[in-house]
């Protein structure tokens, strides 16, 4: 006969409550580890989004002042056309820049509302013949400070800075989350083993009267699952806050240029959330399966 859901939930609740301190510690550890794990992925998404404009071999961008004169603009174009070191360049006008801006800030329509295409700086996206960092830097320097030029941003320094930051933070988050996930798995295992030992007599009676192994195991496995899912919910809340208050803050228009486009889309956030929940379930399954198969023999 199948296990009654009421029985399973009641026993799971009893198990969780019996070791409430250990349960709380387990949930916190799972929550923090999943938060770190999810942050790693969101950070990765944000970095990819921030460096998107550097795709296609573009190594530096010449941002023009929106108020630059036609002559100033023509002088820059002429310099780009005549340089033997430049393979290609592409002019992105104010309207196109505005479209890019709308894409980047699709999740914050209030920002799009206050910005007009006229406020957007047009730019030249430049592909040099030689992508060597020093050559690119020398080329970029030729355009810095010219009349009408607002700023020249080289891909190398931007990407290097972002990548460097991403690598350090990502490595810390990834390794940290793995260590904590391992700790969380062990905590789930310990919690269930402790519950199994606390209920030794009950389990003995269950076996003697003919309860099936799965009937005995399921409440313990649900206990592990409940801890993991509650931990995942806390992690989800943390990830939501991380995205809302940290990542979005970086990509504010008055934020660092380096971090412009440092954003996580709704779809990316959803896939990170699903991944976090999946990891939580996997951790609980591993922890509780080891516990019940090793400590609840037939």
């Amino acid at each position: 006969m199948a296990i009654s859901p009421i029985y399973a939930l009641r026993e799971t609740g009893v198990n969780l409550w019996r070791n409430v301190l250990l349960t709380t510690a387990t949930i916190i550890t799972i929550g923090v580890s999943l938060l770190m794990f999810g942050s790693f992925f969101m950070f990765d998404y944000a970095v990819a989004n921030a460096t998107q404009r550097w795709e296609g071999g573009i190594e530096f961008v010449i941002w023009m002042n929106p108020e630059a004169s036609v002559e100033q603009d023509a002088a820059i174009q002429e310099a780009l056309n005549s340089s033997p070191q430049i393979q290609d360049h592409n002019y992105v006008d104010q309207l196109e820049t505005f479209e890019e801006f709308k894409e980047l800030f699709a999740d914050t329509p209030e920002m799009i509302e206050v910005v007009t295409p006229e406020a957007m700086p047009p730019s030249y996206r430049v592909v040099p013949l030689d992508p060597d960092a020093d050559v690119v830097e020398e080329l970029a320097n030729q355009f810095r400070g010219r009349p009408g030029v607002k700023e020249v941003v080289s891909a190398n320094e931007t990407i290097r800075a972002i990548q460097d930051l991403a690598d350090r933070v990502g490595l810390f988050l990834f390794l940290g989350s793995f260590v904590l996930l391992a700790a969380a798995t062990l905590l789930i295992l310990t919690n269930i083993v402790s519950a199994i030992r606390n209920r030794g007599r009950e389990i003995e009676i269950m076996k003697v009267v003919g309860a099936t192994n799965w009937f005995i195991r399921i409440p313990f496995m649900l206990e592990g699952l409940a801890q993991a899912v509650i931990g995942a919910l806390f992690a989800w809340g943390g990830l939501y806050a991380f995205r809302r208050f940290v990542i979005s803050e970086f990509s504010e228009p008055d934020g660092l240029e380096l971090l412009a486009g440092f954003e996580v889309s709704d779809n990316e956030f959803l896939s990170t959330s699903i991944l976090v929940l999946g990891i939580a379930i996997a951790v609980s399954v591993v922890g509780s399966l080891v516990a019940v198969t090793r400590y609840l023999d037939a």
Partner: protein
Amino acid sequence: MIKLENVTKVYKGDNVALRDATLDIVKGEFVFLVGASGSGKSTFIRLLNREEVPEHGKIFVAGKDIAQLGTWKVPYLRRNIGYIFQDFKLLPNKTVGENVAFALEVIGKPRHVVKKQVPAILELVGLTQKLENFPHELSGGEQQRVSIARAFVNRPLILLADEPTGNLDPQTSVGIMRLLDRINRTGTTVVMATHDRGIVDTMRRRVIELDRGVIVRDQARGVYE
């Protein structure tokens, strides 16, 4: 109902708990297992409940060789076997009613069956008034009655009792034996390991005596020695 064919059980260190045991116990029989401590009585009972597996021989319960039974089928075998412990093994945080109901709940019996069978079995063991009491509020004899109720609530074919009067005074033991006798009269086979000479001599049922794992006596309407 129970049949042993040349059953041998050896523990670690060549410690033979049961040696070449062969016997038949028919349905509805009441059998005493007697012998000194370490003679193999408990092993005999544990083999019947499939808590142990013999090294040699076959054990048939209700026609099935339980030594060959798959692990997943063992719980279904045990649903046909009630088990009474010397130390009762009641759950202290559950009431009398909950202790008995537990045996039905964990094998997935529907709630309406539990509600019907628990009061009926408590009436049989004479504990209707103690339904809401916790084990620590009961005497030793009453606790053993709860243990019997739990073992019999699912109406098993066989009742195994491992020294059920071992922790009780003689007068209380008589009450417990009357209860087991009453259950036996319903057609349930009872196999009881005991050291209680008075009970065996008074009841005059089949006696199987073990000595260092060997069946040295199998006597109908026997006495302790």
